[in-house]
């Protein structure tokens, strides 16, 4: 067997006997993402659905001045709350979410056919109130429109006269696409799974061996150091890939329990997703593992390595955030950027859109080249005299 193979099998054997490694790499890493997702989805979806069905409580000031309006609003799901003394102050101090004030001359204006005024009092800087305000405004506009049409009819005119423009909303987001927006963080979850899967072996390969004083005797063997590095990298990548595979399978299972259909969405989390996502991500596994080993090689102790790698884990979240805030149109060159390319591919897969073979190939080749480059850098670090010496 080659020297790299000897190192590989020893690392595998040792790690498979380590309960802590098994827990982190093969249980915690793969399950963290999917479970977090299920919980998040249930919370988000649950709240959206609740809001749409529940009555909307609104403080109404001057309800007695517009009894017909208030009745109509009640039928549309408004729950009339008793008035408060200073509604502006109450909203500002967050004692109430929003208030509706019927103007003092509402009755007179209505009877005379002049525009009658109502005010919505709310705080737009408070995010959770936003959809409530939209609901109330929608109710009021609907009421206004209906009555306007009735008045036109009463004067013998077609209601269409007052509606020169009809704006129809046609949302081209397919159900899959809407679901994928909620899933913008899923690729990062997968990257995190790769990270956690290889974390312990990457740390152990240098900082760990040095701390346990076994690196110096190891390097006294007649084996070039890059073979030792290669064996350790392959063992790290094996655990990482195992973690990723289990994570993808977990998403497959969890996908069945996602309440996506209640929101009129569907996500392509089927066997096809699994079969394509795994090969798409394997080059990234190699890049992230050798990156972890490189970072850990600079650390003086295991604890220090954990700190460095903990920070490094946050780097891959950047493309996720950028893509969810600025939904850019994917250009071919973007697939050539490691992390970003895989991210885009996974998003497309989730939306059940085809990913061009050229993009997939470009992403894989560039990522593998990047991994090779980092390997060469790490080899230089491995060749240095200081690597083995702890003090």
């Amino acid at each position, binding site marked *: *067997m080659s*020297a790299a193979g*000897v*190192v590989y099998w*020893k690392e595998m*054997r*040792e790690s498979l*006997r*380590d309960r802590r490694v098994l827990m982190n790499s093969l249980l915690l890493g793969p399950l963290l993402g999917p479970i977090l997702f299920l919980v998040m989805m249930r919370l988000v979806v649950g709240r959206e659905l609740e809001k749409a069905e529940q009555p909307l409580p609104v403080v109404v000031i001057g309800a007695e001045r517009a009894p017909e309006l208030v009745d109509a609003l009640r039928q549309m799901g408004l729950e009339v709350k008793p008035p408060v003394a200073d509604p502006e102050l109450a909203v500002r101090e967050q004692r109430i979410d929003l208030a509706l004030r019927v103007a003092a001359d509402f009755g007179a204006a209505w009877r005379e056919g002049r525009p009658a005024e109502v005010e919505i009092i709310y705080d737009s800087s408070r995010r959770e109130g936003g959809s409530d305000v939209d609901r109330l405004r929608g109710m009021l506009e609907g009421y206004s429109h209906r009555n306007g049409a009735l008045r036109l009819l009463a004067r013998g005119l077609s209601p269409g006269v007052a509606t020169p423009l009809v704006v129809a909303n046609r949302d081209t987001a397919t159900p899959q696409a809407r679901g994928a927006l909620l899933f913008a963080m899923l690729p990062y979850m997968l990257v995190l799974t790769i990270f956690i899967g290889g974390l312990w072996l990457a740390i152990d390969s240098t900082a760990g*061996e040095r701390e*346990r*004083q*076994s*690196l*110096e*005797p*190891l*390097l*006294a*063997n*007649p*084996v*070039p150091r890059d073979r030792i590095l290669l064996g350790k990298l392959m063992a790290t990548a094996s655990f990482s890939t195992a973690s990723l595979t289990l994570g993808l399978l977990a998403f497959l299972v969890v996908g069945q329990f996602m309440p996506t259909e209640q929101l009129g969405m569907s996500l392509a989390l089927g066997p096809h997703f699994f079969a394509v996502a795994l090969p798409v991500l394997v080059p990234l596994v190699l890049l992230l593992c050798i990156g972890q080993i490189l970072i850990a090689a600079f650390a003086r102790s295991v604890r220090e390595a954990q700190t460095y790698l903990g920070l490094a884990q946050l780097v891959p979240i950047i493309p996720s955030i950028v893509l969810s805030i600025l939904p850019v149109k994917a250009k071919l060159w973007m697939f050539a950027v490691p992390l970003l390319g895989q991210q885009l591919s996974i998003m497309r897969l989730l939306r059940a859109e085809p990913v061009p073979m050229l993009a997939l190939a470009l992403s894989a080749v560039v990522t593998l080249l990047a991994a090779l480059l980092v390997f060469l850098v790490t080899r230089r670090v491995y060749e240095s*005299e200081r690597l*083995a*010496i*702890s003090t």
Partner: protein
Amino acid sequence: MIEVQGLHKSFGAKHAVDNVSFSARDGEITGLLGPNGAGKTTTLRMLYTLMKPDAGSVRVDGRDAVLEPLAVRRTIGVLPDSRGIYKRLTARENIEYFAALQGMDEAATRSSCDALIATLGMQDIAGRRTEGFSQGERVKTAIARALVHAPRNVLLDEPTNGLDVMATRALRDFLRSLKAAGRCVLLSTHLMQEVAALCDRIVIIAHGRVVADGTPDELRALAGESQLEEAFVKLIGEAP
């Protein structure tokens, strides 16, 4: 056979090893004796090619350690200052790992392992994972894996550190058996009794320099002292 000529090594402004020359012959036990921080470990590290000398040469059985590090590593067995073993592997697996890295085949590995386990009295512990081993059991495992490829030259950095009396005696007997087999044994120590009990030749190092080199009798004569310890103190004191 290990020949060291004019070895230099600095870390920053500190001269850790300053023009060290000596040789360790086959069939002899040579002791590198010196106080802590004298440069013994650094010297040994250059011998087993973990470090490159700034100047000077190391030849092991005629091979240059800088030019042919892999070939040199095949002919030496090393018990370094750090002697961590893998605690999730059994003692035998630890030894087999190094045998595989030395490129030995399965049959050779098995017979060599069996022989070392018998010689070092490790039969009871060979199949156990090394987690929870005593200091003596760990050193035995580390020595066995260092010597599994039957190297002609054996380098040991403070081999009896942390060992109890019985383990120390057993180790000394083992080193004498290596000597009897014609191997070249080089050990470093800061313990007087160690070299007195064991070594055929003594190289005294202080402040990174060789201050004396000879048989125990020659050193006693050189310092004009009948006790080796007195000779040692006197010789070190003479160093700048």
